[in-house]
């Protein structure tokens, strides 16, 4: 039982990070209607920014804040300079998706170029300590990840549902042409969405880096896959879906292989079986919106 709890909390802690990556993907999907394959690499770049700020002498929380601001600018600029000139993503979604894959490679190469492959590490935001919950030792870092995820999800929900900016973002996601006819400056709204997604990526990366130990340009590649898995499970356009999906993926990949011996070496399998089953029963994902159209 103690072992189970320990695995469960590790799974939740990792899942919280997948959920953060998923939230970034959902934010871009909801404002632009496309999947950003560069989300993970943008987060990796942000994590290096954070490391750089720590290296310059900032405390980790301030460094994270600085990295989030820097990432917001990076995300906005990437959209303005690289994604927006391609035109309406709804007209040629493939072109835009391929460009985000190109960005994936480009940002990765840029990070190698700037920071090289020296050994670097980032300290855990919540330290190395742990607390005993029902006999199982749980790292504060894992609890912190779940807590921060909750705050992020709430913040995004408030922005999308309760503010004018959020309403504009939802309008642009649903029908950019109509939103423009209603006076919404579409390009600016999209820039904002990309900025927000990049900021949240910074948090995900800074949480993930101590997990892996060292900080290198391939930091976020696996988490991006898990992030995609999370939103496929939860529904591409649902913030709640990203959170629940991320946590579920984290827990299933951590807990199930510990008890089913043939899955020991293929820890991803249970998560993907779960996704398959959910998609068979609910193609839009657990919390995704079914498209309602009436003519």
């Amino acid at each position, binding site marked *: 039982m103690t072992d189970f709890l320990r695995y469960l909390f590790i799974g939740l802690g990792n899942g919280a990070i997948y959920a953060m990556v998923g939230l970034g993907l959902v934010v871009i999907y909801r404002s632009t209607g496309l999947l950003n394959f560069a989300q993970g690499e943008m987060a990796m770049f942000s994590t290096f920014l954070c490391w750089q700020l720590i290296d310059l002498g900032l405390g980790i929380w301030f460094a994270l804040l600085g990295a989030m601001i820097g990432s917001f600018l990076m995300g906005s600029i990437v959209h303005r300079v690289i994604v927006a000139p391609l035109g309406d993503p709804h007209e040629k979604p493939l072109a835009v998706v391929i460009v985000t894959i190109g960005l994936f490679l480009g940002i990765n190469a840029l990070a190698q170029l700037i920071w090289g492959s020296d050994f670097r590490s980032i300290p855990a935001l919540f330290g190395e300590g742990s607390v005993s919950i029902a006999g199982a030792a749980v790292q504060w870092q894992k609890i912190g990840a779940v807590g921060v995820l909750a705050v992020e999800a709430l913040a995004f929900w408030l922005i999308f549902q309760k503010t*004018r900016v959020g*309403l*504009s973002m*939802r*309008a642009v*996601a*649903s*029908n950019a*042409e*109509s*939103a*423009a*006819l*209603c*006076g*919404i*400056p*579409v390009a600016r709204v999209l820039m904002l969405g990309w900025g927000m997604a990049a900021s949240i990526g910074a948090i995900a990366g800074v949480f993930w880096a101590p997990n892996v130990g060292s900080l290198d340009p391939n930091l976020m590649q696996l988490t991006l896959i898990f992030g995609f898995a999370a939103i496929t499970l939860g529904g591409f356009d649902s913030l709640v879906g990203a959170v629940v999906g991320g946590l579920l993926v984290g827990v299933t990949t951590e807990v199930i292989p510990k008890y089913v011996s043939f899955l020991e070496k293929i820890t991803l399998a249970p998560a993907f079986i779960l996704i398959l089953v959910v998609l068979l029963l609910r193609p839009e994902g657990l919390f995704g*919106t079914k498209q*309602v*159209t*009436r*003519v």
Partner: protein
Amino acid sequence: MSLLEVEGLVAGYGMVSVLDGLSLSVDEGEAIVVLGANGAGKTTTLRAISGMIPSRGSIRFDGREVSGRRPDQLLVAGMAHVPQGRGTITALTVEENLRIGASSRRDGDVEADLESWYQTFPRLGERRDQLAGSMSGGEQQMLAIARALVSRPKLVLLDEPSLGLAPLVTSEVFSRVAELVSQTGTAVLLVEQNAELALDFASRGYVLEAGRIVAEGTAGELHANDAIRRAYLGIDP
């Protein structure tokens, strides 16, 4: 002075030119119709005027040259556009659609305005929390028009509001719109295939053929014109 003055408008899609030097004008508070068959360039005319597609020629709105401006900038300047196929934002609720329509307004009366719209269109009030995409065609058309008018424009471009609606619903839509614009003094530039209804609604009109204006006159003159009666009203003189 005209509110909208279009001169020598040339526009199209890619290499295909649809409008070939079109000119028209709309005075303040005036209801104008552009009649034309399928493919004459009616929708393209409106899309070019509101900046949805690039165009050449001159578009003067409210005393300023506005050609090359984006649709959102034109809306802020007072030109609203209800596109063909209504353009309601289906993933938002009815109320959110209206709020988006009012998003360019900086005055504090939006709340009171929404209430008065719900009184004008009780159906919208009943369904304020429902997704716009789940409403009937006529209701969505009304919502699209209300959403355009809630921005308090000087001019509304209306693209074939009759499209896909039952005849009874269409005449209901037209009479409501006529009431609304006469109350608010909003000018309307309507493009329509349903000439009978449109000429009742408008005071003046143009006839568009292959991207050019081939006739213009008051609604009465156009209604009496034999060629127009044959081509657009289905009446044998």
